């Protein structure tokens, strides 16, 4: 059977890996290609790059990083951040990305999901949803979690599936950076209404948070950044924790 995936996420700004806490206060970490290769060797099932560059130079650098990663990393990798047009999708896939993630641009123009999926296949289109709790449910946030789109996250998840997304990367703006575990209620609410894989993101502070989300929801994958980057915990410790709780994972 398909195993649960453990995915390290690398936030890349102007060609360097950084980590934001609550999407602000960035701290520089290192070389993205070297870090991706090292995570792949350590047993990561997939790698996600999130480009948070503010400049065109930064975004062009990202294409070079993708090309170099494809030469050195032999597990699937996804690139998101700043993807606005089908030309952006094409450029990243041609550079060697296995999947491309889209977020704000998909909210502004949902046809981007449809046209990219029709052209390249659903399996390489990931829609990132940043959700935040409000009195009337979860809202889809854009612009790095800072702007309320007013869209209901559960309805939006159904819509992106219908439009041909192959996967949803679901980040809880509320738990991101808090290190108290994934947002189980949000994750369950989204996973239960779609028939495509969902990656849970935001809130990991301990390896045990992974088996927790896998046991309490039907989510397909869990993503974390800082616990891996800061060497607080290794991929292996996360997988050992999953295994000890009876969660089916890939041993590497």
């Amino acid at each position, binding site marked *: 059977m398909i*195993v649960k995936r453990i995915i390290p996420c690398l936030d890349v700004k102007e060609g360097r890996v950084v980590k934001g806490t609550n999407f602000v206060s960035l701290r520089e970490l290192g070389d993205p290609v070297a870090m991706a290769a090292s995570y792949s060797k350590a047993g990561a099932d997939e790698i996600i790059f999130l480009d948070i560059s503010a400049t065109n130079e930064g975004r062009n650098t990202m294409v070079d990083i993708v090309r170099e990663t494809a030469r050195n990393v032999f597990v699937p990798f996804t690139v998101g951040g700043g993807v606005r047009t089908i030309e952006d999708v094409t450029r990243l896939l041609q550079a060697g990305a296995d999947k491309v993630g889209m977020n704000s641009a998909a909210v502004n123009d949902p046809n981007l999901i449809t046209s990219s999926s029709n052209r390249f296949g659903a399996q390489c289109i990931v829609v990132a949803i940043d959700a935040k709790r409000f009195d009337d449910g979860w809202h889809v946030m854009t612009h790095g979690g800072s702007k309320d789109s007013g869209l209901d996250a559960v309805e939006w998840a159904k819509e992106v599936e219908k439009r041909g997304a192959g996967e949803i990367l679901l980040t809880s703006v509320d738990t991101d950076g808090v290190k108290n575990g994934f947002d189980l209620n949000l994750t369950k609410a989204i996973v239960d209404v779609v028939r495509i894989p969902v990656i849970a993101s935001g809130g990991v502070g301990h390896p045990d948070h992974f088996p927790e989300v896998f046991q309490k929801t039907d989510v397909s994958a869990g993503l974390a950044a800082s616990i891996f980057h800061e060497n607080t915990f290794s991929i292996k410790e996360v997988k050992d924790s999953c295994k000890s709780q009876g969660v089916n994972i890939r041993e590497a």
Partner: protein
Amino acid sequence: MIAIVDYGMGNIASVKTALNNLGYDVIITDDSKKLEAASHIILPGVGSFQAAVEEIEKRGLKEVLQSLAKDKPFLGICLGMQLLFTEGYENGTTKGLDLIPGTVEKIETPYLLPHIGWNALDITPDEPNFVDFQDQHVYFVHTFAANTDDKYIVATAEYGPNVTAIVRSGLIYGIQFHPEKSGEVGLAILKAFLQEVA
């Protein structure tokens, strides 16, 4: 020299980099002379069966590939593996290369489709070159899968039914998953094929 068949279907650069990483010289080509000069032929591919057959025929490669498969190690990966069979049922019925008898049909499963992610291999006991890969995980992305006689099946993966993962008929191999995206295990499986000598 290993030749990767270039017929315009999907990202073939990652297959090349994986082979380069194993220390092999690789050429990506649709030139029949260069294909004939190669020691091993690799047919990759991502996309639909019907579109792939059209692209192969448009380049006049169908007979070339059928003849190459008779005298040198030949590996189809993902869609390239499906093309080895008699016919495929994606977007209607399309004739494949018919190098191995069988059909390519949509997977019937209660689980999500496409079948995406890492799944464990179950190796047929009498395949000495592959026994080491028993229970190893490899990365799949597909909705259609091959139905063929058990005698051609080297490995399956459980996804509701047992999905055909590796097939073999003489020196013709087919791999449904992506060995170039399956970490060290995937590279070792590619190596098992590359050590075949015609």
